[in-house]
């Protein structure tokens, strides 16, 4: 069975350790809404001091306009736990991020926003960056078969945690699926109160 999770243009962001302060700087965190963060993504890199777009920054290059797959390096999303970071990335239009590694909290936050994060070896990430050097890339991501398909029958496999794959394929109901265990939660609360009354 083939199930295309995403397809589209790839934007190569050739950096390690991209932290969430870079993905969305603090001045955008005073919002009380979940929306409106697309413009803020990579703000300090994306705009010059006068507010105009920085033509040197890869996301702004005309050939990457409309990209939906972000390719990057190691430890992407490190730093602050702000979920505004995946909100901004998703609202901009990326729903897949491919990297050598991700920071844990960022990874969870992204999955909770139905984004697919693909982790590959450094060698494979290098291969993908090499492909991007040949010109703008259009890839398809098949989540069921766990493959990145480059066209012309070329593909690269990836690993993904079975539970996360299941959640992404079935559509998320993050809180709802835990609420199925409400009776167990109530039992746990009771026994906790009995054995550790000081916890409340």
């Amino acid at each position, binding site marked *: 069975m083939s199930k295309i999770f995403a397809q589209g243009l790839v934007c190569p962001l050739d950096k*390690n*350790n991209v*932290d969430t*302060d*870079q993905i969305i*700087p*603090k*001045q955008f*965190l*005073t*919002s*009380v*809404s*979940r929306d409106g963060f697309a413009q803020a993504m990579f703000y*300090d890199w994306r705009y010059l*001091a006068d507010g105009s777009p920085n033509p040197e920054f890869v996301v702004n290059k005309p050939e990457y306009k409309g990209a939906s797959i972000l390719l990057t*390096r*190691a*430890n992407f999303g*490190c*730093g*602050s*736990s*702000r*979920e505004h970071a*995946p909100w901004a990335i998703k609202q901009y239009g990326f729903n897949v991020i491919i990297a050598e*590694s*991700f*920071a*844990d*909290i960022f990874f*969870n*936050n992204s999955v*909770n*926003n139905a984004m697919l994060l693909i982790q590959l070896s450094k060698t494979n990430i290098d291969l993908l960056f090499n492909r991007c050097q040949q010109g703008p890339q259009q890839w398809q991501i098949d989540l069921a078969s766990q493959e990145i398909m480059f066209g012309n029958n070329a593909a690269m496999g990836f690993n993904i*945690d*079975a*539970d996360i794959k*299941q959640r992404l394929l079935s559509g998320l109901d*993050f*809180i709802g*699926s*835990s*609420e199925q*265990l*409400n009776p*167990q*939660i109530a039992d*746990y*609360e009771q026994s*906790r109160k009995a054995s*550790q*009354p*000081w*916890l*409340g």
Partner: protein
Amino acid sequence: MAQTLYQKIYASHVVGKLNASTDLLFVDRHLIHEVTSPQAFSGLKLANRSVRRPDLTFATMDHNVSTQRRSLDAAGETSRKQLEALAANCAENRIPLLDLTHPDQGIVHVIGPEQGLTQPGMIIVCGDSHTSTHGAFGALAFGIGTSEVEHVLATQTLPQQQAKTLKVEINGKLSAHVTPKDVILAVIGKLGTAGGNGYVAEFSGSAIRAMSMEGRMTLCNMSIEMGAKAGLIAPDHITFDYIKGKAHAPKAEHWDAAVAYWQSLYSDADAVFDQIVEIDAAAITPQITWGTNPEQVMAVDQSVPAPESFSDATKRDAAERALAYMGLEPGQKLTDCKVDVVFIGSCTNSRIEDLRAAASMVQGKKVAAGVRALVVPGSGVVKRQAEDEGLAGIFTAAGFEWREPGCSMCLGMNDDRVEAGQRCASTSNRNFEGRQGRGARTHLVSPAMAAAAAIAGKFVNIAAKPQGEQA
């Protein structure tokens, strides 16, 4: 079967299984603040859900508040709205809140322990990455995102998978002027900012046993900076003594039972860790970051490294970019480097021992001309104590600004920013590009190092010469 401390805490919180490798864990304490909670509350409302355990939820205002004066208005319109949203959400859901009028208000990771909310064996979460701080008490504490905040509000649980375990064993005695901040910077320098990804790190060894609770908090606070999911230290009598008598500590009739339980919280002697790192405490010297992430760190008397000295190509590129951003040359000594701003504060280093260490460098001296220096205590409790002990007077007499509690210049969400191109000696935890203000150049150091830099107007190797001698 032998278990690590992490595995013990994890196992005792399993409510049930969600999936093959995902467990639902019960959360003992949920700390919230104004920045990462508003969307969670609106999500709850939208889905007609309520807060399951307001009695296990505690809120403070910290990230966004002005530290100049205690007013919701003082840090701008959008900040005020966010602070008001928190107050309204807490009132509506009966969640206790330390707001700006409360004498104990402060940074969430300072007040949790101070109020006795943080206890061994608990699972503690907060929509903030430095929740790792609370691991100093032998609690499994980690940062979460806003969707997870909403999940915890609704269910008091969180889906989790078992993390790998890392033991960082630090033995030996720290030299004079070497602090827990230097220890954790040295550990991050060794392991790298991603070295802990996927792991929960337990710190152990004689250097840890000798550390005060405040030192242990500094250490665990920055375990997230090496990517670890959490930092952990097994509780001992230092932990119990710290907790005893705090507002939310177990009351007299439960105290002995609580301590008996806490004493079972350690990694079994034959527990197997996925990775072990050993560090000699005596070899650690005062540290300073030279780059734009915390692994770009060195001893203060070393020279700024040349990018070519890194064999790994990506580290080389990162060093090159960092030096350009920081306005530094390879081979340069930071002890020759002028500082413009000194910030003593943040959840890493704003507790009373931090302020004492800083004040000891300052007493009877003046902040160098042209340096802007501020001290932002971590909480109302710390502030009062520092004033009572005369530390505040030492700082203000020297020319430091003495502020109200909050996150302040750690991330500059309020009006405390470092200007573009300015160099800041900061006791906070992140030297990321733009963290303290666009174009700001942050050097992470200990409180004593920051205070010494304020007096000298440049970075100083405080371990090299007797205190008080002029450079």
